[in-house]
């Protein structure tokens, strides 16, 4: 989305060169992009909220929970593994936070380390989810429990996957010198997105595993 604004600034060198106060211009585009990104997060949050509403509605109106399929009550989800996996994801949030802090202080080596830690933890979480999918004994089609679980966690997993790719791209960009210590909106956006994905998982974790 921000490509156009970049183009405004960088695409026409002759025009861009006329700027006396480049940082101020950057500040304005950054403001726009930041607000736009926040609104994107808001609308994404509503997408999750709608599906969460669907899940809560179906669960509350069901006669028994977990539902009964073919004569057998479905099992509850395995809380202990999910708790471990959640901690992995939350940990990646903290490491991402450290990565951004280090970028602000121009500590590129530490930034790289924390960013790689984040990506590794993110991939670890995805692998954990894959494991969860393979052992969980319900099907997507069989019941509302399966429908909500696989749809919501699948959407979330997709977000994590996109996030991992995004962070990897950010890492490459950062090492190529796209960002400086004062201009690093991409990293801010990546960090916010990653925190957002973590927080969505707080909701999903408590609704599926703790409720």
């Amino acid at each position, binding site marked *: 989305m921000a490509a156009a604004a970049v183009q405004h600034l960088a695409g026409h060198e002759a025009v861009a060169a006329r700027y006396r106060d480049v940082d101020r211009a950057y500040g*304005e585009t950054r403001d726009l992009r930041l607000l*736009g990104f926040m609104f994107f997060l808001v609308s994404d949050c509503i997408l999750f909220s*709608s599906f969460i509403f669907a899940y809560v509605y179906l669960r509350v109106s069901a006669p028994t929970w977990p539902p009964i399929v073919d004569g057998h009550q479905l099992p509850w989800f395995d809380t202990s593994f999910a708790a471990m996996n959640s901690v992995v994801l939350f940990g990646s949030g903290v490491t991402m936070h450290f990565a951004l802090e280090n970028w602000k202080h121009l500590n590129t080596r530490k930034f790289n380390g924390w960013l790689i830690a984040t990506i590794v933890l993110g991939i670890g979480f995805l692998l954990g989810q894959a494991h969860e999918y393979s052992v969980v004994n319900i099907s997507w089609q069989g019941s509302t429990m399966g429908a909500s679980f696989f749809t919501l966690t699948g959407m979330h997993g997709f977000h994590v996957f996109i996030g991992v790719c995004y962070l990897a791209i950010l890492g490459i960009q950062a090492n190529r010198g796209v960002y400086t210590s004062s201009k690093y909106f991409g990293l801010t956006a990546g960090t916010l997105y990653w925190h957002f994905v973590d927080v969505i998982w707080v909701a999903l974790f408590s609704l599926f595993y703790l409720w």
Partner: protein
Amino acid sequence: MHAGTSTTHDAHDVHDHIHPPPEGFVRKYVFSLDHKVIGFQYFFTGLLIMFIAGSFAELVRLQLTDPKGAIMSHQAYNTMFTMHGTAMVWLVLIPLVTGALGNFVMPLQIGARDVAFPWLNMASFWILPLAALILFSSLLFGGPHAGWTEYPPISLADGTAGALWCAAIFTIGISSTMTGLNFMVTIMKMRAPGMTWTRMPLFVWATFATALMNMIATVALSAAVGALFLEHVFNVPFYDAARGGSAVLYEHMFWFYSHPAVYIFIIPAFGVVSEVIPTFSRKPIFGYKMIAFSSMAIAILAFTVWAHHMFPSGLAPWLQLPFMILTYAIGIPTGIKIFSWMATLWGGRIHFTTSMLYALGFLITFTFGGITGVFLASVPVDLHAHGTYFVVGHFHYVVAGGAVMGFLAAIPYWYPKATGRMLSERLGQLGFWLFFIGLNGTFLPMHWLGLEGMPRRYASYVDFAKAVPDAVFWNQFETAFSFLMMASIGLLAFNVIWSLRHGKVAGINPWGARTLEWTISSPPPYYNFKKVPEVYGRPYDFDKPLPYRNTDNELDAFPEYGKTVMPTPQPVGAGV
């Protein structure tokens, strides 16, 4: 367009950054980043789909001239009204009022050079034809035929066509969300210096309220149709009662979007009327703050009333009460607006241009639709009227008599700014009378037909015609009048194309209007404002000089500008 205009720079002011216009047909007119071109693209696409969806409506009306169903099978009829509703709501109204009007007018009115994210804006537009293709391609698979609401479980019988319907709506939802987001940021961050929130033109307020709803509500719709899509394609049981799902859940999720959707069409129309009425009454808008804040109040209340569409549909009785009360509450800000517009007329110097006629017609038809809305808000009355032609009549008074009338008022009003030429007043006023008479003739009888017992979405009404013999006459009456509306839209299309070449040259400000877009040339240059204007007052004080500094943008190109503070209005004839 002023291609190649040399860019003189005030290099110290970043606002004054002007980048050269794109060259080459594709970058200029197809994948343009310019909000004005994108506005045109929305306009012409919307108008084209409006013709298709309008012909579907005419087929629906023709079918009902005979109680047994005059021209097609039940299945075909069901497909027709489904496609009519779907295309009109998502591919015509929302793109026209937010995409076309919002895109063209809003950045000009806030003194911006473009929207915040031009590339995103372009992407939003190009999603629209894609969604239209997906939707219309569903006709190849028999078409969706469960009504524009596509309630499961009946919509699950639509098969591939239903899945394509979901895909189309999901896609267009992405476009709406992105447009909403883009406009929110644009209005919040890119207003000209000095344009405080209470100095914004009312159309901008309306666009802001609309963008808020677009951004928040549309995602809920995406979730609803997304889940429906999963159920269609992967057989995932969200709505299937046999596996614990709930059909009522879909209705909740669907109406959480689709009630605000009605306000998404209507609030920009409010904005248009709030611009047109003061301009042609030569009076400041009455109660500026009340109108602006009531738009926001409506936008926020819109999220709290969705279940009034579901009073008989399995809502817990105790839930009916809060939804009824909140729905009544919406009547208050709406009433304030209508009274404020009436008060603006009082003591004015009213010029009957086409725009003004549409605005006056809007006041009457929209008020009617609003009042029947109060009827439907009441649970007991709704238990009788729900799902009947009364609802169809009410809805069309609000949408055709409100949103479309507002849109039709906007076309002649901003056409001179967009093209540099005036629309033909004679054709325009003829078009107004055709539309106004056609609208009332088509939708008024629906109210009593509904109350007498005619349910909506009826492909034939043999039994009803036995009980109420008048029904046949009234249905034929409606069909006859509906063609007047169609003729009016045809006339508009002709007028729009004919006037491109043959219309009178408009000049900068043919209406003597006072918002910022009327201080630059018509059509506006690529960069809109050579210098970013400064604002030090509200735009509606007709007896004062314009409250703008820095608006001598075009003095060299248009010497007539600046001689009078308020240019002479066009001589206009009485409308009758």
